């Protein structure tokens, strides 16, 4: 009040003043993360927290953390949080949401967690049109256990369990999760974004926002797949890893909107 008054009175001086244009979102906790330097898990966390701040959801949100590098995610968000069994976050989220229908429940899952061991749970959660949001980190590898092949590993990619490069004849082809889940009627929103540069990060954030809005409007299941990096297990510097993601992941995993129900389209036009 007083500060405001003071500034107004000084208005004629026209001396530029300093505006805060970016600060650490409140929905993040103060704890330092254990993620490797340059790992995009941190970016995804930040974006989610920014969206929670902007939509005023910090007091309503419940996070379900996966088993994977993000296993400790509940330490990094300042919201209520649970740690699920490997792959089962969507089932746990279902239990939470059904008895807490007014809360905003989201899972955060890696590609081993969601696409491999947890594919049944995420599919059925989408089938039910469960009103939750899934943030899906596709980094083409199992990070936490030291770099084994994931269902999302790129053909030919060397991992500790595909030492000669992923052989599609033996292990099949990468799973396109955003596309797969878009085919289910219960899905309200299914898109793929990338975190490999700032332009794409900004787009990713918009998608995360839309996903949470879908939940707030009770439109059903929403998922944002985020192409991410794992510098450590890819054996690259963080910057090289982002380049690799751009050059190798995007061709395999085209960015785009695979399903956006009409209610959300209207909303986006009006914004």
């Amino acid at each position, binding site marked *: 009040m007083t*500060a*405001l008054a003071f*500034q*107004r009175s*000084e*208005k004629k*001086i*026209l*001396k*530029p*003043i*300093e*505006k*805060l*244009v*970016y*600060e*650490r*979102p409140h929905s*993040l906790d103060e704890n*330092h*993360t254990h*993620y*490797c*330097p*340059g*790992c*995009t*898990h*941190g*970016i995804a*966390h*930040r974006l989610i*927290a920014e969206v929670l701040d902007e939509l005023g959801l910090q007091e309503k949100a419940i996070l379900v953390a996966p088993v994977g590098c993000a296993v400790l995610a509940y330490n990094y968000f300042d919201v209520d949080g649970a740690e699920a069994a490997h792959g089962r976050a969507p089932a746990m989220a279902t239990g939470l949401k059904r008895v807490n229908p007014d809360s905003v429940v989201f899972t955060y899952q890696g590609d081993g967690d969601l696409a491999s061991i947890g594919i049944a749970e995420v599919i059925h959660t989408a089938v039910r049109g469960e009103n939750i949001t899934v943030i899906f980190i596709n980094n083409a590898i199992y990070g936490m256990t030291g770099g084994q092949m994931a269902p999302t590993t790129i053909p030919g990619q060397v991992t500790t369990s595909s030492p000669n490069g992923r052989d599609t004849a033996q292990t099949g082809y990468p799973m396109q999760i955003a596309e797969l889940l878009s085919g289910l009627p219960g899905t309200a929103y299914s898109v793929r974004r990338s975190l490999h*540069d*700032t332009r794409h*990060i*900004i787009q990713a954030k918009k998608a995360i926002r839309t996903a949470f809005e879908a939940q707030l409007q009770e439109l059903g299941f929403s998922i944002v797949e985020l192409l991410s990096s794992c*510098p450590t297990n890819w054996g690259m*510097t*963080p*910057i090289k890893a*982002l380049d690799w993601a751009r050059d190798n992941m995007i061709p395999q995993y085209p960015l785009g909107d695979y399903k956006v129900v009409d209610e959300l389209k209207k909303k986006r036009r009006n914004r």
Partner: protein
Amino acid sequence: MAKGRIVIDVERCKGCELCRDACPQDVLMLSDKFNNKGYRPVFLLEHDNECTGCALCAIACPDACITVYRQVPQRRLHPAQTAV
């Protein structure tokens, strides 16, 4: 061009250089010294004073270490934006 300033939480920084890569003004550099976690944190080359406050560094940072301020001409300011 608008002037900007960033504040880096050096103990949180892991020296991954994603901010440096993202900065269009190229005013970020890794420190020679290690922080308590054993990383060389990034710092703003203050003397150049070329930061525009565009916040791209903050958008790129995985560890949310960066706070960004930008100088704006006071008249353009809506009151609400400064209310604390």
